[in-house]
């Protein structure tokens, strides 16, 4: 019985990964090789190799952004994915012209309902809550729905006494939802605080790019802070800083390696070592860092 359910859960996740459209259908992979240029080194890399990476350049190690469902499927134990609040979306609090249409087209092109996916699942047999932001959806910006999904996931982890892992990727607060987007920073940060006060383990993984209101709220509050190689993270974006100081920023500024050097990260972890790193941290925290509720 349990196997049938877990098979169904896995099929659902596989389907969602397919709908994200990043992993090409098997039929297309069987055809003639399609090349995509690496944004890092500019070399052409066959699509098959991108998909195998996943989305890490085999030549220079550049980490391309990947979809929320794809990342979950790479990390969670097969058949353990249970999505939380998969259909939650937000309205148009500012009556911002054209916002609904833009949301609809983002939903079509990414297969996502919003810029974040949250799920219960298992990692190396340890039950946990995992949240993944997706920068392809409105730059992963945080509006009311993203803030609500993150908050609900944190509260679920607290009540179910599970550790929490969040992969961040965001351009910051979502402009189109105005001040209510800003308020999501308060909402998510206080939920994290409550979870941590209850003894819960919270691991953040910054992926490229994590900026603005997400950096200045839940992304910076991890008990353990990790990042993918080359991921840019900061409060102000590089363009704004350059305008302020009137000069070019140094090479590597605000990148993961720079943040590690400046004391804001525990480690920079390549994508192919992420799963084992997370497993080892979870094991080191006894019962996986379960909240006391």
């Amino acid at each position, binding site marked *: 019985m349990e196997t049938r359910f877990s098979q169904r859960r896995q099929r659902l996740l596989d389907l969602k990964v397919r709908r994200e459209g990043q992993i090409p259908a098997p039929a297309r992979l069987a055809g003639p090789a399609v090349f995509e240029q690496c944004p890092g080194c500019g070399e052409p890399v066959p699509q098959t190799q991108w998909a195998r990476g996943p989305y890490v350049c085999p030549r220079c190690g550049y980490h391309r952004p990947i979809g929320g469902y794809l990342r979950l499927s790479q990390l969670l134990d097969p058949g353990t994915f249970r999505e939380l609040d998969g259909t939650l979306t937000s309205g148009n609090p500012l009556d911002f012209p054209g916002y609904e249409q833009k949301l609809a087209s983002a939903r079509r092109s990414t297969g996502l309902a919003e810029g974040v996916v949250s799920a219960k699942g298992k990692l190396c047999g340890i039950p946990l809550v995992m949240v993944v932001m997706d920068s392809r959806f409105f730059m992963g910006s945080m509006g009311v729905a993203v803030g609500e999904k993150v908050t609900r996931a944190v509260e679920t982890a607290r009540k179910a006494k599970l550790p929490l892992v969040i992969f961040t990727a965001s351009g910051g607060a979502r402009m189109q939802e105005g001040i209510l987007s800003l308020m999501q920073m308060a909402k998510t940060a206080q939920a994290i605080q409550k979870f941590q006060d209850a003894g819960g383990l919270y691991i953040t993984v910054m992926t490229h790019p994590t900026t603005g209101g997400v950096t200045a709220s839940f992304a*910076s509050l991890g008990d353990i802070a990790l990042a993918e190689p080359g991921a840019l993270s900061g409060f102000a974006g590089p363009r704004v800083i350059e305008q302020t100081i009137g000069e070019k920023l140094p090479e590597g500024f605000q990148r993961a390696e720079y943040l590690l050097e400046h004391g804001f990260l525990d480690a920079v972890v390549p994508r192919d070592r992420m799963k084992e790193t997370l497993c080892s941290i979870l094991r080191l925290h006894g019962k996986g860092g379960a909240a006391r509720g």
Partner: protein
Amino acid sequence: MADHSPARRVALARDPGRPGTAQFLEALFTDFFEQRGDRLCADDPAILGGVALFHGRPVTVLGHRKGKNLEENLACHFGMPTPEGYRKAQRIMKAAEKFRRPIITFVDTAGAYPGLEAEARGQGEAIARCLALMGGLTVPIITLVIGEGGSGGALALGMGNKVLMLENAVYSVLSPEGFASILWKDSSRAQEACDVMKLTAADLQELGVADQVIPEPEEGAHTDPQAVFAAVDEALSAALRQMDRVGDPAQHRYKKYRGMGDGWLAVPGKENK
């Protein structure tokens, strides 16, 4: 209340003659002792904080400080705090909790300082810690938005149990210039941005962010500061009295911010609450 356009209110909120945190501090409080420094490496003058008496009662006062002249403004980055400022604020708020003092915060900043050094020392982390800290504080926080409430740099002092706004104060996710630049790639369309952003005190009350709007003289707070001080004094006294009746300020605050934007969720049903 006056019938100003949002853009006019933005201009009034930024008027250099408008009373700032230091002026409110002097007018409304006595025996102020300034607490300086983050106890790590520096003292950021863009954050002004300390202990004072409000009608004889010890309170912690904290606010953004804009300079009165160019020299002061260069020292405090025109009221835009660095991470050291936010870390000083955290220290002062923790002391308030230890000594069971209510916290009164004055919000008046264009935003956190977006400089190279500020980033290198963790501007995002410093703001995030302010929010997490305020989320759990067991003493009441009353926030007064007196001028510009710009972005995360404003919110870092703004998580009040009660949020009171002066009539011509504004509060937004980003400055209208930044908003126009991000959404329309044209910062000169700031005027237009003011109209769509819903950043006036009345808008914020409607959106559930501000609890009360304090009226100002027709042409702005700077035309009759004494009248504004009196109105703020009265509103603040009332807000403190209300909070004295709240048994658990931390829970009260959690509930307030937990519900931010609730009315705009497209799929209702809060099964995880």
